[in-house]
């Protein structure tokens, strides 16, 4: 590294423009090469220039970066780039010393359209699937002690979820972790929010809620870090991200997928009205059960009694038979008595005393 010389004017150290630029350029040259993503704008290429120039613009906030690339290298890529196209540019920052212009020196450029993006996501999806990250389907707790909610800070998703959950199950307790849900900071922020909810001991289920958005908006939910965090979460995770047609990778890693935050609420808490109704039904059955038992026993008892009645000796006497007793013992044969014996005759209605006149064989 060249030493940057400064002139000394009394107690003041002063650099020449050239020395200052060289010093800064030297600093910049020590930064690593990186990939930068943006939209190509103001592409300038002329046969007599040694380099091609363009501006890389951040589609999010419009931040700009001047980029240059040697024309021969640019031409060799045969990219035929047009203004507005998304690209990944590999290079390093540099200072054009003669003019003090800061810019990004491109070493390579790759067009990065929607198709490329989807292809990259698809590769990630296959890799994570091969690791078995998309196979977790744990059952949700029936009565979660607390429900963790990760959502944006004033998101409609949050309101929808909270409304749905308190309507369905008023005693539900929800811990909300607000975080960024889009942009480059979102993925690590959501991972952190997830982690902080996991640390709360009685959180039994976590819901990731975010309303629908553009493909770009939902990108954090396909971030590898977040997908891994969801797959490794201590408690079951319900993913309620975007609309039905979007499938961010967190959806695949989550235990349950809900198409909207309101539907997620229906999944994580039971319906209090339904529970009450069931309880009332059970109570009614409880009240009816003993009477049913009594009735069943009574029917059985009456059955036995009916049979007993049919066997009743009085029923037989009613039909015209009589019982003859002598000294309290039933007389079954004429030989048991002799003429003149006192006997007692019992009839269907009453009875009478009698004396035996004669006996027959």
């Amino acid at each position, binding site marked *: 590294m060249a030493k940057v010389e400064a002139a000394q004017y009394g107690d003041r150290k002063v650099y020449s423009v050239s020395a200052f630029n060289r010093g800064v350029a030297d600093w910049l040259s020590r930064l690593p090469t990186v990939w930068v993503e943006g939209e190509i704008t103001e592409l300038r290429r002329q046969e007599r220039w040694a380099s091609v120039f363009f501006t890389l613009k951040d589609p999010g906030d419009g931040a700009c970066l001047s980029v240059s690339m040697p024309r021969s290298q640019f031409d060799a890529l045969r990219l035929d780039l047009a203004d507005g196209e998304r690209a990944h540019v590999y290079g390093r920052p540099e200072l054009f010393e003669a003019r003090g212009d800061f810019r990004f020196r491109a070493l390579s450029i790759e067009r990065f359209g929607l198709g490329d993006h989807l292809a990259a996501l698809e590769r990630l999806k296959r890799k994570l699937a091969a690791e078995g990250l998309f196979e977790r389907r744990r059952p949700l707790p029936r009565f979660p002690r607390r429900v963790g909610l990760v959502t944006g800070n004033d998101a409609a998703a949050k309101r929808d979820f909270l409304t749905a959950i308190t309507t369905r199950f008023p005693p539900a307790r929800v811990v909300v972790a607000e975080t960024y849900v889009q942009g480059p900071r979102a993925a690590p922020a959501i991972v952190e929010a997830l982690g902080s909810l996991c640390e709360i001991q009685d959180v039994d289920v976590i819901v990731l809620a975010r309303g629908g958005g553009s493909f770009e908006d939902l990108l954090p939910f396909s971030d590898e870090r977040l997908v891994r965090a969801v797959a490794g979460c201590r408690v079951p995770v319900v993913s309620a991200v975007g609309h039905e047609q979007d499938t961010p990778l967190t959806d695949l890693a989550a235990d349950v997928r809900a198409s909207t935050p309101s539907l997620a609420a229906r999944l994580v808490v039971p319906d209090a009205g339904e529970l009450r109704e069931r309880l009332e039904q059970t109570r009614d059955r409880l*009240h009816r059960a*003993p*009477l049913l038992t*009594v009735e069943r*026993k*009574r029917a*059985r*008892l009456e059955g*036995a*009694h009916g*049979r*007993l009645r049919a*066997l*009743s*000796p009085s029923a037989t006497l009613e039909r015209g038979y009589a*019982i003859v007793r002598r000294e309290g013992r*039933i007389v079954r044969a004429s030989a048991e008595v002799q003429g003149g014996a006192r006997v007692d005759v019992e009839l269907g209605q009453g009875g009478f005393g009698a004396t035996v006149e004669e006996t027959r064989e």
Partner: protein
Amino acid sequence: MTFEEAQKELERIVQQLETGQADLDDAIKLWERGEELYRLCADKLDSAQGKIEELARRVEAVKPSEPA
């Protein structure tokens, strides 16, 4: 004597009478015993039913009204 014991004995008596094996004296004794057991069981059932209905009435009286 419990209800179940009485009921069992009653059914045994009925069975015994139905076979026609018992002689008349025994039959009458058995029959009387059967009637006695029947009354015992019926009384027990009546009192159980009364208790259940009484409890149900009391529960009904303290049942909270449905929120409007």
